[in-house]
Structures are given as C-alpha cells and as structure tokens.
C-alpha cells in the first residue's frame, strides 16, 4: 500500500494504528504528501458542510405522500427538522417567551378591564350582554318604575334565556318590589320551575328607547328563590337577564369589586381550520399549509355586546428563510416551512351583534415558537342558534424572528373557517 493510500485510509479512520507512525514519519519528510493531506481535509470540510445543508423540498414531500394517499408530515427529515427547531428554540427560549408573553398580555388585558370603564357607561343600550336582544324587538307591555332601590330578600328575578311556553297572562307585581323592574312587563308563567337556578347579571327591557330603559345588574351571585317566571307577549324566544340588584345606567357592565377577573355570562369557544399562503414563498403554499395540522382554538370572553377578549392558540406553518453562520466561517441558508405552535391574546369587535350575520375584526398579539407574532382577522359570524355560530374570515399574520443578529419576518395570508359555541 502506498503512502497516499495510507493517507486516505488514515483520513477515513480506516488505517490500523500500528501503521500510523509510519505514515506520520513519512508526512514529516514528504511535503507533497502533506499538501495532499491539506487538500483532502479542505475538501472533506467543504463536502461535510455541503451535505449538512441538504433539505428535501416541501413540494417533493407532498408529492410522495399524496401519491401514496398519505398525509404529508409537517417537517421533513427527523434529524434536519428536529435539529432546526432545537436550533431556533435554544437560541431564544421561545417556549418560555411565548408563555410569558401570553401571560403578561393576558394580565394586561384583564387588568385594564378592571380599570377602564366599559363603553356602555354613557350609552346604556350598549350595555346589553351579547346574548340578550338577539332577535327582533318584541313589543312588551312594560311599566317603568322610578329610581332603583336595594332589593328585598325575595325580590330576585330570574335571568337567562327562556322560551315562552304559555300565553296565559296573569299580572304579577309583588315579585319585583324594589327592583325597579318592569313588573307589568311580565306575565306569570305556569311553569315557574324552568327558571330556577339561572343566575344574574343582565338587563331587561332593552328593546325600549334608552330613556325608558331600566337596566339592572349584579356583580355577585346569590341564592335565588323560586319565583314566577316571565313570559312576554310575543311567542318568540328572548334573552332576559335580571338580578336582584339595581344598577345605575352609567355603571359599567363589568364592575369588579374585589375581583380581578370579570365574570361574564358565558364564554365563546371557537375551533377553526386555517389554509394559509406564505407571503414569502408561494412555492410552499397553500398546499403545504392546508390540512388539519393548521388549526386554532380560541376562548372568547365577552366584555360587552359587541366586543370580546380572545385567548388564541394554534399551529401554523411559517416559511422561514435565514442564514446560519458556521464556526468555520461558512454559512448555510435554511429554507423551511415548519409547523409551529403559537399563542396570543387579542380583541374582537363585532359590528352587528344583533344580526344573524355578524361581521367582525380581530387583532391578536402573541408569540410563535420562533418569535413574536401578530395576527389580524376580518370576517363574519353566522348564528345558527343562540349558542352555535359558523364563521369564516380572512386572516393575515406575521412572525418576527432573529438569528445571528439578523431580523427576519415571515407572513402568511389565509382563510379561516370554523365553528363557535357559547358555553
């Protein structure tokens, strides 16, 4: 075996140890062999970094899987994908940052909720909870009482959503003493037990002009004695809220004495599917970003009839194109489309909360696994019933990330659609 062959075997770690000394001795005296070793080492280093830079095109992956009738994996190449995500995460502690960001922003929103008066303080009609007054105004035989007074022990009036079951009308007046409630607006229902156990917080009579309204609210729950239920002169459903305690018209819907968090009447849970187009590389979308992997779940906390705070989280692919600088002075450009978890907090404004079709806009700030992000959505909800809605929207989102001192932005535009439930 020539020294050249021994050199190659040595560089491949195949040369027996007992022959190494012989090679080293030759290397010490053979400049040509040393030069060859340098060339081969240089080539090996270049090839190694070239080999590490290989990734599989997303389009090829999808093609293979779709040909076989399978769903394409979110990330390609275990080593490559895992290494990549580990690389991103290790640099930024993103998981911790996401959580911290969500917690901080959530706290800020709720904190402000307790400080900033609701928009309904000057316009009582705005103070109607979201699920009240969903339907067309109903003619009610209503008599307004003067200024509210503290409730009597048995003066509670039930709240909640109910359907009229009877047209049997019996005037009741004794149940609402001191409440400022329009006693005459109600008639006795022959099924009084159907209203038991439904709690307070709400208004009644809001279908009347503001000046004639009598809004009541309670910020705490208390035992409600069985009372006669109400029915109205119209046979359609109506959402009625009540409480045993009067609330001035100027008072906010959510007053939070001794409580940091509001206590809304219900929550909205949304599940949505997203199909997004990368704004940075059309080659990887929309096909790469479709499918059940791209989804979001949202918890909505109503703050007024037309607004709610939303806590969103989900998974979405973001196309990432960045350059990683290597220790040996080289660099590798990564182009990936990883599926990442994201979470955030935001605000949704509903423009026509009483309508069957309710246009809305929503803004969310938060973080994805690689960095902070923002999301904007515009669409419409369609009420199927009092508690179920379908919705569709257009959503744009941008994620910032930074690597090796360089900032990058990845943006998606897509359509979202799903179902929301009032719980």
């Amino acid at each position, binding site marked *: 075996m020539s020294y050249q062959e021994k050199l190659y*075997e040595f560089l491949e770690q195949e040369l027996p140890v007992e022959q190494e000394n012989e090679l080293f001795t030759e290397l010490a005296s053979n400049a040509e062999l040393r030069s060859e070793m*340098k060339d081969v080492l240089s080539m090996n280093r270049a090839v190694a970094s070239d*080999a590490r*830079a*290989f990734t599989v095109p997303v389009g090829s992956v999808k093609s293979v899987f779709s040909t076989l009738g399978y769903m394409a994996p979110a990330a390609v190449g275990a*080593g490559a994908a895992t290494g990549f995500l580990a690389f991103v995460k290790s640099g930024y502690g993103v998981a911790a940052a996401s959580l911290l960001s969500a917690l901080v922003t959530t706290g800020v929103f709720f904190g402000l909720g307790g400080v900033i008066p609701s928009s309904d303080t000057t316009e009582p009609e705005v103070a109607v909870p979201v699920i009240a007054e969903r339907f067309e105004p109903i003619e009610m035989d209503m008599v307004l009482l003067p200024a509210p007074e503290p409730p009597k022990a048995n003066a509670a009036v039930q709240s909640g959503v109910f359907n009229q079951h009877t047209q049997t009308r019996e005037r009741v007046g004794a149940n609402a003493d001191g409440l400022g409630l329009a006693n005459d607006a109600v008639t006795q229902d022959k099924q009084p037990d159907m209203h038991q156990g439904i709690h307070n917080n709400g208004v009644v009579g809001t279908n009347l002009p503001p000046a004639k309204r009598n809004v009541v609210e309670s910020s705490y729950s208390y035992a409600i004695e069985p009372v006669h239920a109400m029915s109205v002169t119209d046979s359609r459903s109506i959402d009625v809220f009540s409480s045993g305690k009067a609330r001035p018209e100027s008072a906010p819907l959510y007053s939070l004495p001794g409580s940091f968090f509001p206590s809304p009447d219900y929550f909205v849970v949304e599940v949505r599917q997203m199909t997004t187009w990368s704004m940075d590389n059309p080659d990887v979308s929309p096909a790469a970003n479709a499918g059940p992997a791209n989804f979001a779940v949202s918890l909505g906390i109503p703050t007024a009839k037309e607004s709610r705070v939303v806590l969103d989280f989900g998974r979405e692919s973001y196309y990432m194109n960045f*350059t990683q600088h290597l220790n040996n002075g080289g*660099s590798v450009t990564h*182009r990936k489309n990883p599926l990442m978890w994201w979470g955030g907090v935001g605000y949704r404004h509903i423009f026509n909360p009483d309508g069957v079709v309710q246009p809305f806009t929503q803004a969310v700030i938060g973080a994805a696994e690689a960095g902070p992000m923002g999301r904007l959505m515009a669409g419409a909800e369609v009420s199927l019933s009092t508690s179920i809605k379908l919705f569709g929207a257009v959503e744009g989102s941008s994620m910032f990330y930074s690597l090796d001192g360089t900032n990058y932005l990845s943006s998606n535009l897509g359509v979202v659609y799903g179902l929301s439930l009032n719980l």
Partner: protein
Amino acid sequence: MTLRRKTHSDLRKHSDEHLCGLLQTNEAEAAFTEIFDRYAVRIHAYCYKILKNEDAEDVFQDTFVRFHRTVEKGTEVTNLSGLLFKIAKNLCINKKQSRSRRVMLPIQDYDFPVEAHSGDKKELLGLIDMALDMLDDTYKEAFVLREYDGMSFKEIAETLDVTVSTAKIRVFRAKQKIRKVLAPYTREFA
C-alpha cells in the same frame, strides 16, 4: 390498550425491519412517515448529486413510491437503507439513459436545497461538483454514498454489490481524482 392511532414519532425507536413489516398493516402511514423521516434527506442528497437537475426530484419521489409498493406486496426487507439506495441508483441509471436519448433542456433552478456559503467555500463546492461530474459513475456514487450519505464502507459495498475493499478503493480514487481537479484552486483557498 391505546385508542389513538400511532404516529410516526411513536415509532422512532423501532428498527428499519420492523417498520417495513408495519407497512403491510393499518399502521402503514405512520411507519412510512418514520422511514421517510430517516432516509429522505440522504436519498435526496444522493439523487441530487448524481443527477444534478430536475430529474433528481422525480427520481427521489419515485424511489419512495416504488419502495412502498415493493414492500406493500410483501417483499421481506433485511436492509432498508440498501434497498432504498438500490432503487434510487437504478432509477438514476434509467434516468441518465433516457436523458441521453432526448434533447437536454436548460437546467431548472431549484429553490431547494439551498447551499449558501461564504464566497470561497461556495466556489470550492462548485468546483467539487464540477469535479464530481467528471468522474465515472462508479467512483461518483461511491463518493456520494460515503460523503453525502454517511455510509460505512460495508454499507457502500452492500449497496453497490461489491467487496468492502473495492468500495474503499472507489472512494479513495474518487477523492484522488477530485483532488487533482481541484489542486490548482485549493492552493489558492489555502
């Protein structure tokens, strides 16, 4: 008892042979995804280095599809890596033969993979690619399997149906030839 269907991450620790066995069960999708996860980058690198152009993508995709269909039919697999590379190798040969019979179109630029490097290294890699193209296929594929797919000489020997010493010689010869082509340039970079 688990009620949920297995995902490919559940199969991370399974052997190649076991995964091939699962391809004939209702866990085929998870098993295939795990196999793809293990070998896609290496097969892609092989195809890309051997063929250099858009044909590489076709062959890469075809390799996995043919592999799946082969195993699906009940073929017993004892060396998954070897089988995949053999399929890829045969497809590359077929592609080269059909290429020689047709009019060559301009090479399409690919968005993937991207290999951006510092100026010198980029130039060096370009030269290595050029030198690779000048090699006989026997040397070229041995070099690619060793350097880009990280195979041992034993694995290369099994894949190419040659002895281990022949595999070694092919890799060394490939390096020597590449080095000769690069010699004038590597001195500059040094």
